[in-house]
């Protein structure tokens, strides 16, 4: 009995010291002091993170960061983007060079544990697929035995491809080309029958690079799971919570029909869910250590998730698919903000 009591006391003490230091995480304090959020993004991936003709960063990954900056500092431009290569990205986050890593990074077990990352949510469900010329007459990936396949090396793409063909008991001949543009032109010039990469990439290549998009089709099979989302460092739960709930706020806003344009008028909404989200009923902001207008500011800066998707991903030629809200048959589901 005594031991149990002692353990309970110790646990209580731990909880108390923990909650004492939990008032505001070090990252949030640092961000407030600096006056901007540091965000690691891709060095250039259409739809996710790319500089437009005026040199301004745009894209889905970029907008998530802008939303976080707006939620904390009230301004989506109080942000510093650090373009990171695939190799640099985790070091940049671990060393504190960036506060958020929003760089089309797949959520995997090893990254979540050994690399010391916390994924704050999934902002885009991707998966590896195949594109073929229509005149090949192939309707399914299961008919690809013996095909020549264009693939970029050094990514999980190449490994997934080998895994899939081994599991199906099929043979294939890889054509491995490093640079994106070259692998794409190799495919369109007919050096290989099949091009494989993430489905988002396939759709974008088909829409924008194909001489005639109608000559090509994307096969229905998706052979891997690539949930992409922003990551933060282990050990700062408050910061983790903020990024996580900003994503949920963007999803909830879409579900409740709150847009960048109507967010101000929605403040008068009678719907308690909207009232709580936008801070008309206070409490959520204080719980996160932010202003009560945190979600309002985020939505004002970038719009709801649906608007972000329309603006960045739809021009790639991608429909919502699994990235639709759960109410519309997709996987996007926000936890209740209360």
């Amino acid at each position, binding site marked *: 009995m005594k031991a149990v009591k002692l353990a309970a006391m110790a646990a209580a003490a731990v909880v108390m010291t923990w909650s004492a230091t939990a008032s505001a995480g070090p990252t949030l304090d640092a961000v407030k002091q600096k006056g901007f959020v540091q965000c690691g993004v891709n060095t250039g991936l259409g739809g996710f993170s790319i500089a437009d003709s005026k040199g301004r*960063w745009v894209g889905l990954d970029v907008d998530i960061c802008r939303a976080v900056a707006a939620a904390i500092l009230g301004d989506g431009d109080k942000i510093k983007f650090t373009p990171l290569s695939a190799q640099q990205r985790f070091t940049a986050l671990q060393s*504190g060079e960036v506060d958020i890593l929003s760089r089309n990074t797949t959520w995997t077990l090893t990254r979540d544990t050994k690399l010391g990352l916390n994924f704050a949510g999934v902002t885009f469900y991707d998966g590896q697929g195949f594109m073929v010329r229509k005149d090949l007459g192939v309707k399914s990936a299961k008919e690809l035995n013996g095909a020549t396949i264009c693939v970029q090396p050094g990514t999980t793409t190449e490994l997934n491809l080998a895994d899939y063909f081994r599991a199906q008991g099929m043979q294939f001949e890889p054509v491995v080309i490093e640079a994106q543009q070259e692998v794409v032109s190799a495919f369109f010039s007919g050096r290989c029958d099949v091009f494989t990469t993430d489905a988002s990439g396939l759709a974008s290549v088909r829409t924008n690079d194909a001489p005639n998009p109608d000559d090509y089709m994307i096969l229905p099979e998706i052979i891997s799971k690539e949930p992409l989302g922003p990551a933060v460092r282990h050990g700062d739960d408050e910061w983790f919570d903020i990024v996580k709930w900003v994503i949920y706020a963007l999803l909830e806003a879409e579900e409740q029909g709150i847009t960048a344009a109507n967010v101000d008028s929605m403040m008068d909404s009678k719907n308690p869910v909207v009232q709580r989200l936008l801070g008309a009923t206070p409490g959520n902001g204080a719980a996160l250590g932010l202003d009560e207008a945190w979600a309002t500011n985020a939505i004002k800066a970038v719009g709801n998730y649906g608007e972000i998707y329309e603006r960045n991903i739809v021009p790639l030629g991608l429909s919502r698919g699994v990235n639709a809200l759960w109410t519309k048959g997709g996987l996007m589901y926000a936890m209740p903000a209360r």
Partner: protein
Amino acid sequence: MSDARTTSRAAPVVQTGPVQWAKENLFNGPVNTALTLISLYVLWLAIPPLVNWALIDAVFTPDPATCKAASGACWGFITEKYRLMLSGTYPYEQQWRPVVAMVVLLGLIGMSMNSRFWNIWLAAYWVVGIVVMGVLMWGGVLGLPYVENAKWGGLPLTLILAVNGIVFSFPLAIALALGRRSNMPAIRAVCVTFIELVRGVPLITVLFMASLMLPLFLPEGMTIDKLLRAQVGIILFTAAYEAEVIRGGLQALPRGQFEAGDSLGLSYWQKTGLIILPQALKLVIPPMVNTFISMFKDTSLVIIIGLFDLLGSVRLAANDPMWRPFYVEGLVFVAVIYFIFCYTIARYSEHVERLARKGERR
């Protein structure tokens, strides 16, 4: 003895003009004739499609749909994106600042290349110019908004990396070369280790180390500026190569030159500064310039640590899904710019060689 006379001959006919030139240079023998014909045929095959692609069928309006329909080059891509390509992610409204800074920098370089300006004032101009460039690029004073150097990009970034690389690596290289030939074992060991270590790894690895490993050794939250890390990496790397080039020049000097300096009672520094280095450096102008040119182009490797130099900015522009099929035009554009700079450096080095050889032409 005899008064036999050679029969008089007519003066040799000197044929000039393009026909004769062609006969002498292009068709003087079966092999050359065959080579000429083959070359002409290849040109005949290559040039008309190239002209068609680059000019006749080309699209100059920035509209991806028109570009896709046309069979020629899409220079509209350049029209649409040239500011992104040349200035990177520098804030759009402020892009006149890097332009002015570049003009200042090129003006200073141009002056430094002309022997008329080689006096003490040049140093003063450089100091003033560097301050002006710093104010323009960073801002934060005189009502110019502050632009952190993470946003610098395009041609200014390439020029800054290259010019700093050349200016700072040169003295370091001389020191390393002299150190490697020093009689003092400690200095020699340090120089040899540095040169061999840096020369033994590719530049891309040095940049990687600077951008990936270094931050992990620093205390959390402390970061050294990325541009500075890359710049230091480039300087150290170039210095190691330059040092070996200069050492080659030092070794080419006859021993007598060193002994002459000693017998005149000159100190080590007098001897080195007055006798050895002027001769050694003159000898190695071509390989030295070679290293500088390759360094100028190597600055494009900074893309792997997320800095957008000229080539990086073009790649960034070509990542736009709307314009992605026209990346070749972007690469042609950037190739022209690189060529202009590298060719200028090469021509200038010939000029300097002639200047340096004045003493030998009597």
